[in-house]
């Protein structure tokens, strides 16, 4: 068991580096001028997508734990969530400082008048308290209220999906795929869905009987 725990700890830097890969690639594409004809749109699109993907990854942790019985997975969740916040912040910064640039003050009008900007900005705002209270110390201090507060992530993910859907002109396939992923992750959290997924499972995968080593790592 000790060895297993060490592996989680040891693999965290690896996950950290993995989460940085999109940023490094985008940075290198930017410097090589390889982002295509409209590089700013590409930067906005890519950083937004990674924020949304990482957000959905944090939502996938709980269902995956239950399904696989690999409960240590939860120890990766904070890093995924913080990287979601990081990419959302880069996304906002690119929009504000690179895209709007000299017209940065327009963002107030956009937030007030354009629903897709409103929900996108709101999603980012809601991530701030979650990032701020993500430390062990804050978890201890908030106790039960921590979990209540962190349910905000559901709202954030919904707003992020809407943000994507509302900015697409006609071909809504891609945002709808993300919406579907979000819906599945949320539906899975309903009590009846959990009961459904717990019946017919092999005993070795039940949460209270740890899965064999070969399956879990």
């Amino acid at each position, binding site marked *: 068991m000790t060895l297993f725990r060490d592996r989680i700890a040891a693999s965290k830097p690896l996950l950290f580096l993995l989460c940085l890969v999109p940023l490094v690639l985008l940075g290198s594409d*930017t410097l090589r*001028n*390889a*982002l*295509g*004809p*409209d*590089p*700013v*749109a590409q*930067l906005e699109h890519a950083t937004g997508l990674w924020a949304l993907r990482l957000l959905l990854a944090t939502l996938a942790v709980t269902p995956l734990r239950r399904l696989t019985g690999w409960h240590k997975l939860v120890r990766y969740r904070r890093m995924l969530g913080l990287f979601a916040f990081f990419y959302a912040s880069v996304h906002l910064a690119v929009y504000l400082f*690179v*895209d*709007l*640039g*000299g*017209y940065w003050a*327009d963002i107030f*009008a*956009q937030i007030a*008048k*354009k*629903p*897709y900007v409103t929900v996108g900005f709101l999603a980012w705002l809601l991530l701030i308290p979650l990032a701020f209270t993500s430390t062990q110390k804050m978890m201890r201090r908030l106790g039960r209220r921590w979990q209540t507060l962190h349910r905000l992530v559901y709202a954030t993910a919904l707003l992020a999906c809407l943000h994507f859907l*509302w*900015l697409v*002109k*006609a*071909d809504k396939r891609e945002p709808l795929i993300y919406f579907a992923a979000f819906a599945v992750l949320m539906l899975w959290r309903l009590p009846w869905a959990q009961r459904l997924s717990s019946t017919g499972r092999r005993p070795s995968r039940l949460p209270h009987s740890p899965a064999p080593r070969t399956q879990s790592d």
Partner: protein
Amino acid sequence: MRIGKLSDIRAGEITPESIYQRRRDALKMLGLGAIGLVAGCSAGNAPSTGAGTATAEPNPDEKPLAITKKDEYVVSDPQTSYKDATHYNNYYEFGTDKSDPARTSGQFKPQPWSVEIAGHAEVVGKFTLEDILKPHALEERVYRHRCVEGWSMVIPWSGIALGDLLKRFKPTAQAKYVAFTTVQRPAEMPGLARDVLDWPYREGLRIDEAMHPLAFLAVGLYGRALPNQNGAPLRLIVPWKYGFKGAKSIVKIEFLENMPRTTWNLAAPNEYGFYSNVNPAVDHPRWSQRTERRIAGDGFSVFGNRIETKPFNGYADQVASLYAGMDLRKDF
């Protein structure tokens, strides 16, 4: 910016002998050029990653079109690169991603081509592209191109004034509108497999808009035949309107008494009006139209691309009078 007055390009001007000869050469080269382009695209169909799948530069073997240039129709803004103008296209018949048309249009055959003229006109019927272009001298116009999505380009088009062509068919007094239909060839246009829009693509203009000297039919860009992804072999350019008004690969031109239903207007009537004049004061319901991101020049271009959008895309002096007395918030 200098744009000519109506009087500068009266229809039916007497053509000097030299231009007549050059226009004949131009037609010949247009044919050759288009064939060369198709070959080039097929070669570019081999799997490859990233940009540059289709030609990034005009094919050097392809002879340039013979075109006359009139300074009045040349805006002084820095031009978009050939590569960007031919690799960032909204042509949903070839796919909805802006990189799709350059990748998937290699199978499309813009030769031979004919256009059906129908509706309220004395001369109607099916005409070959050669017949359509024969009496006209090709000219080059450098126009600003503003997409409804909020980006813009500056592109040198080769072609003819739309009004000069339309007059040859002698539209009757009942012809109040002109409708344009894009070709619909599922075997050559993979995007048609999905019902993203109500195919075939249709666009329309009021007859006085169509007769305005700025309204243009392009057969080329950057002095070469139109690449497939840009609407080969014949497309509409209405520089004071959002880009989607410019129907591509036109197979039918129809003179109508009533306002035609147009594709984007049908898809979302509250977002895309029939007129769709570039107007920074009227936002798209979902996003702002006050400013735009200009795609022009080459090299490092991440910062400082945003500029203010001008009424009628900067052509207000020439076209605003067409809409005198209209409420452009209502008739957007």
